[in-house]
């Protein structure tokens, strides 16, 4: 079964054992969580809040993606579909139906999860490379649907989505107010993923990643486990996309395009596949890079390609994976 060795098996530090620290976090992870929370609290006073909100949306997106690749060993090459559809539905709910932002985001996440249930049901029939190709093809189908469907606004997208009032009374027009909401959503999603990974359910997921036939022989219905993981991942990706369209007031085809699926793979790869904090760091690196290099146009694609190649050839653990390896801890 050498072939089925999970993609992250060599990305995980040798010290992958559970030292029961605080709330299921290892001591190192708890420290890193502390650093992250402090950063979230201080950052909006040092950096532009809209940029930070964009970063957090992509960080949550990458964390959701990492739930599949890092802990089940499934590479979805079509996660933009759930991210983008979440964005469209939330935008439509907020604009056309005039719903409050939290309800709109829940609708976006729920739609993405439902879509993930259908797509996952089809895709989990194959593993490895086939799974990646199938998810990419299904996402392309959703992309074409979005191009044609009237409610997405086609090439124009859904524009001027109102930020609205949280719970109906707290106006979110000020960037800083909205920032705290987005930071809250991100933290909630992050902790939820952490909780999933460290639950008995998450243990079964990891056993599927390591050796699926053995998990089956132990009596687990691995297909059910994989499907639920896919739905959770798609749903959280949808929440990330929904939050992004509320923040920016726009939902467009860019977010459902295959290149967005590639970007989230890149973020997770740069940060470290199968690490809890890797996707956050990777998203920060890639979003920052895009921000600074935006005027270079198509060269951004080239640079992203180069980073892909370097990461795959020489840097497979990613930033967080390398740090964890150096410090001999689990992050």
């Amino acid at each position, binding site marked *: 079964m050498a072939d089925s060795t999970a993609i992250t098996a060599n990305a995980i530090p040798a010290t992958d054992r559970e030292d029961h620290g605080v709330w299921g976090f290892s001591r190192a992870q708890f420290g890193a969580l502390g650093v992250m929370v402090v950063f979230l609290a201080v950052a909006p006073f040092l950096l532009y809040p809209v940029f930070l909100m964009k970063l957090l949306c992509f960080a949550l997106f990458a964390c959701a993606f990492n739930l599949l690749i890092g802990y089940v060993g499934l590479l979805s090459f079509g996660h933009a579909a759930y991210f983008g559809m979440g964005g469209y539905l939330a935008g439509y709910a907020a604009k056309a139906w005039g719903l409050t932002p939290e309800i709109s985001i829940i609708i976006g996440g729920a739609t993405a999860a439902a879509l993930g249930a259908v797509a996952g049901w089809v895709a989990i029939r194959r593993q490895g490379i086939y799974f990646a190709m199938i998810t*990419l*093809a299904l996402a392309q189908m959703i992309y074409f649907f979005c191009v044609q469907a009237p409610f997405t606004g086609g090439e124009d997208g859904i524009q001027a989505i109102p930020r609205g009032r949280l719970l109906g009374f707290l106006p979110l027009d000020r960037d800083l107010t909205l920032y705290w909401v987005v930071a809250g959503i991100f933290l909630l999603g992050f902790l939820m993923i952490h909780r999933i990974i460290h639950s008995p359910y998450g243990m079964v997921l990891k056993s599927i990643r390591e050796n699926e036939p053995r998990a089956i022989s132990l009596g687990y219905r691995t297909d059910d486990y994989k499907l639920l993981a896919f739905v959770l991942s798609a749903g959280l990706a949808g929440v990330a996309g929904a939050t992004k369209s509320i923040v920016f007031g726009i939902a467009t085809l860019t977010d459902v395009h295959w290149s967005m699926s590639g970007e989230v793979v890149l973020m997770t790869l740069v940060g470290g596949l199968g690490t809890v904090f890797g996707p956050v760091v990777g998203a920060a690196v890639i979003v920052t890079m895009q921000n600074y290099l935006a005027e270079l146009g198509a060269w951004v694609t080239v640079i*992203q390609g180069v980073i892909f190649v370097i990461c795959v*050839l020489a840097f497979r653990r990613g930033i967080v994976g390398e740090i964890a390896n150096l410090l001999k801890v689990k992050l």
Partner: protein
Amino acid sequence: MDSFLDLIETISGRPAPLLFGQLLLGLINGAFYAMMSLGLAVIFGLLNIINFTHGAQFMMGAFAAWMLLEWAGLNYWWALVLVPIVIGFTGVVMERLMISRLYKLDHLYGLLLTFGLGLIIEGVFRNQFGSSGLPYRIPDQLQGAWDLGFMFLPVYRGWVVIAALILCLATWLVIEKTRLGAYLRAATENAPLVQAFGVNVPRMVTLTYGFGVALAAIGGVLAAPIYSVNPQMGTNLIIVVFAVVVIGGMGSILGSIITGFGLGIVEGLTKVYYPEASATVIFVIMAIVLLARPAGLFGRA
């Protein structure tokens, strides 16, 4: 003839010129699906890598033909010979320098690496040539159209279908009927054993990749006069070809050829009967096939 046309129109419920026109377009798209999925299958068989760069290499083939004509004055026929050699060689270099380092790792890394390489190539071409697309003239010998009685068949389009068929069948013959093909099939089954018999398997792997890339490049040359030559032409195609590969299963060479042409025709028919679904029909078929026969139509489970 007229009664034949009437019969067709009665059965299909659509004007015959529309029906045949779309069928021809479908056949041409199918020719490209077949060539591309054949290349992917040959590469996957030996390297166990899904070559995401395949689309970019197809696009490079089209651009190389354009460059030969515009910059060196070498016409279409020269391009048909030179382009696969040159682009195939770039593939050989890529395999030696990068892809060969990944064979011991999870196959998904190969997918990620070739995806990255595809991004680089596409980005460079977009910087150099913009994304609007360049025209490539149909060569003089293939201008004009044949009158088939029930429709006019542009000569070049007929040529593309025939050339693709010949290429596909030649590849199939080489793999199934020659000694080289026998080595290739044996190495696909058990590479260490074949190597123990004294066959230089690493070199065979490199050349196989080069051959698969050359096939994509010829596809690009054939496509240049039909589609406008632009940097995105490959990526849009490769995602559909992935679905074609999933439907056919990569186990059988002949299977990928049949699936490629068949799906092209189905897509063409969809344009006649329900145009809104023409962009998605192949993906829908993929989902249905996966539910009914997860290994693909010609695949081995």
